[in-house]
């Protein structure tokens, strides 16, 4: 919006708005106890909002406070009724900044059996907030399968037995038809068969193509016998403290995303350019990390080419102007006419390159959506399917064991594997345990080919042997996945604009130095792509929404505070620093390609040492040091972690 439309709005004060306790927020948390079949609204105070913001900030504190075992020393496991499934949005959700409908899922995940923070978008945040809630906090296990229905003040646990076995898209189709609501009038975040059958890398999928995929959050939902959360777009109002300022900040962010070199290609093509760009760095994972040299003509993988290959329908998240989320219609071949979600870079890698599918582009696009429908994390699927393919080639997994022959690039075979894993059929039962557990069960030499972290997480869809920053981040983060994330304007937080990615010391300092921003973004109810602007702009938008005076240093401090709380939870879960390392293959040295010979293993210990020193955590115990906690304003946590005398 230009300023022309920003004069005072005409008329009609909205009575419901007058009751808003804090600008930018809906004002209530929705609590659900599945065992007791009870749902209730819990107000939260403006002070708590300022302290925890929302998303992962809120979720981390809930995990810390509510998932400890008696006595506070240990933590409940992912499958315990006291585990919490937090589905939180944040203050920017439902407001006009681009991509502002963010969902952050926080729980004790089935992958690492430790804390999780994983994001999706769509219309979750918008629909939830217009119903009057900032987050849903779910506890207990339902005796029978239910779905949660939210329609303003009508919140019900409804029988979901007829939805069982349905994939996530069919679940949404069915609920839409049943409730007579189409398009964004109804948001559905659900699990497919993989979640129902507790696959440890099951995801939560919503609004046709938006996936909170990490750490088996879908298995937690399955364990709770919660098939879906269905949110009717509410009829309440949200008030911004300074609506004109908010729209101006939102437009400035939009301008930045459209024009800034660091965001422009994302604006135009989403994450599609990743395939070619990462292949040039040796960071595109090819055939389970066995090579970094592409055997196909890369020009067909250029972003414009990938786009041109399909008919498209825009499918953007709330208020988003990015040319990112699309629905693609397959134009040719046996799946002609099928509508799929345009794969992200990670879809092309996990459902494509990692499993050696490098030519059948339509096939990869289709397989990626099959994963969303089954609700499996595309990254971990790529590692597990690629691993099985490699092991079969090498004779470590026999045709008899698997039940069929699975060759590199076999899309139909991979789809068969999805079904076996989602239904825990045959060998699929072992694979559903996730790449680490399956590999450990088979032992060497198969184990040595598997890509995972010793904590039990699967990396994102890159070859981190050429992205040491992400490998270190993946291994050290309490959540088992990127905590610092991709740097956005690092100079803004006092870090160098660029570093040598093969200088372990520099990498560790850099990853420690940019820490904080990601957790802040994941607390706002926005998308990590639409927050690719300077933090200053995000503060402006947040302050206009809430009336606060948040500054850039405060955002970083907030994010680090959240990290420390998540770390305290992970320590309670028994995650010790010795688990913070890559598996043999994950930490190996590339034998060819642009990163050939770069040995992360040789520098690993030094990198971790440096990281610990820089973040102010104790290398031996893994605990944040008292001085660090003091600086973060977490003295109460010092007492819990170090005892009274610290």
């Amino acid at each position: 919006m230009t300023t022309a439309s920003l004069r005072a709005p005409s008329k009609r004060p909205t009575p419901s708005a007058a009751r808003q306790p804090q600008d930018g927020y809906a004002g209530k948390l929705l609590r659900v106890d599945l065992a007791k079949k009870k749902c209730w609204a819990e107000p939260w105070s403006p002070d708590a909002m300022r302290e925890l913001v929302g998303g992962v900030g809120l979720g981390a504190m809930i995990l810390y406070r509510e998932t400890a075992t008696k006595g506070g020393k240990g933590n409940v496991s992912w499958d315990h009724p006291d585990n919490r499934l937090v589905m939180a949005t944040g203050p920017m959700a439902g407001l006009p900044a681009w991509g502002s409908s963010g969902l952050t899922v926080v729980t004790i995940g089935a992958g690492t059996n430790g804390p999780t923070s994983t994001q999706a978008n769509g219309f979750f945040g918008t629909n939830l907030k217009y119903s009057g809630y900032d987050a849903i906090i779910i506890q207990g296990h339902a005796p029978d399968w239910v779905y949660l229905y939210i329609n303003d003040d009508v919140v019900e646990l409804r029988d979901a037995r007829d939805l069982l076995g349905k994939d996530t898209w069919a679940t949404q189709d069915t609920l839409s038809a049943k409730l007579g609501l189409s398009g964004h009038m109804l948001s559905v975040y659900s699990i497919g068969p993989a979640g129902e059958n507790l696959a440890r890398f099951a995801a939560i999928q919503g609004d046709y193509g938006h996936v909170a995929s990490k750490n088996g959050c879908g298995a937690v939902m399955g364990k709770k016998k919660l098939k879906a959360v269905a949110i009717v777009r509410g009829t309440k109002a949200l008030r911004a403290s300074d609506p004109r300022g908010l729209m101006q900040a939102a437009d400035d962010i939009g301008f930045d995303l459209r024009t800034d070199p660091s965001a422009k290609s994302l604006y135009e093509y989403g994450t599609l350019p990743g395939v070619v760009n990462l292949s040039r760095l040796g960071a595109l994972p090819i055939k389970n990390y066995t090579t970094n040299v592409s055997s196909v003509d890369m020009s067909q993988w250029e972003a414009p080419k990938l786009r041109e290959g399909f008919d498209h329908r825009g499918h953007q998240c709330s208020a988003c102007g990015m040319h990112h989320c699309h629905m693609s219609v397959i134009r040719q071949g046996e799946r002609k006419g099928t509508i799929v979600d345009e794969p992200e870079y990670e879809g092309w890698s996990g459902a494509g390159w990692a499993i050696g599918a490098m030519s059948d582009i339509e096939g990869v696009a289709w397989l990626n959506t099959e994963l969303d429908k089954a609700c499996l994390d595309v990254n971990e699927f790529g590692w597990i399917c690629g691993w099985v393919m490699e092991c079969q080639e090498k004779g470590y997994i026999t045709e008899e064991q698997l039940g069929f022959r699975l060759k590199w690039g076999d899309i139909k075979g991979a789809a068969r594997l999805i079904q076996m894993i989602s239904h825990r059929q045959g060998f699929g039962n072992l694979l559903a345990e996730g790449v680490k557990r399956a590999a450990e069960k088979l032992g060497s030499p198969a184990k040595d080919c598997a890509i995972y972290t010793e904590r039990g997480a699967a990396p994102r869809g890159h070859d981190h042997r050429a992205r040491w920053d992400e490998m270190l981040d993946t291994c050290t983060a309490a959540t088992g996945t990127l905590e610092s994330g991709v740097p956005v304007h690092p100079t803004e937080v006092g870090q160098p604009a660029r570093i040598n990615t093969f200088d372990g010391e520099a990498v560790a300092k850099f990853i420690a130095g940019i820490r904080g921003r990601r957790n802040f973004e994941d607390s706002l109810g926005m998308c990590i792509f639409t927050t690719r602007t300077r933090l200053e702009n995000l503060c402006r938008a947040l302050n206009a929404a809430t009336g606060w005076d948040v500054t850039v240093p405060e955002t970083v401090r907030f994010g680090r505070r959240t990290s420390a709380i998540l770390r305290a939870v992970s320590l309670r879960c028994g995650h010790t620093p010795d688990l913070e390392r890559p598996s043999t293959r994950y930490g190996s040295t590339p034998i060819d390609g642009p990163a050939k010979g770069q040995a992360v293993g040789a520098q690993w210990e030094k990198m971790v040492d440096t990281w610990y020193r820089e973040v102010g955590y104790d290398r031996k115990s893994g605990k944040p040091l008292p001085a660090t906690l003091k600086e973060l304003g977490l003295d109460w946590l010092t007492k819990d972690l170090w005892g009274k005398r610290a």
Partner: protein
Amino acid sequence: MLATATNVLRIHPEKCTGCLRCELACSYMQTGTFHPAKSVIRVSPFEGHTSYAPYTCTQCAEGWCMTACPVGAITINAAGAKDVLDDTCVGCKLCTIACPYGTMFYDPDTRKAFKCNLCGGAPACAEACPTAAITYEGTATEDWLGEFARVRSARVLAGVR
């Protein structure tokens, strides 16, 4: 684009991504809060989750709502839009029945009718739309959605998912 009295909201449905930002902007202009349930532009889905298009008052020449209003509460504002005079409107809802396009609304909170008034000449929806699927221009009004709706409903009608 120069705003003149003959400007209309032109819809380019093929550009719409269904982000609903227009509804947010509209509701802000109408109510001072973000409140899509009270937006007077509504984005409808076609084919469930794959095609969307916005729809609002066409400011039709007949002015059915004006004709129907028994107390003369609907007038034409400087931008050429039919506009409800809040002080005069008695909330009888006749206009909502008279409008053949379904773009006249009734607000139970204020007990008044409400509709698109072209924001007095600078429509917020057109300015908010990130894809220029809504433009405000001097052209004759037309059925912007007909062909799009026909094509994009075919799959649903045929039962293809």
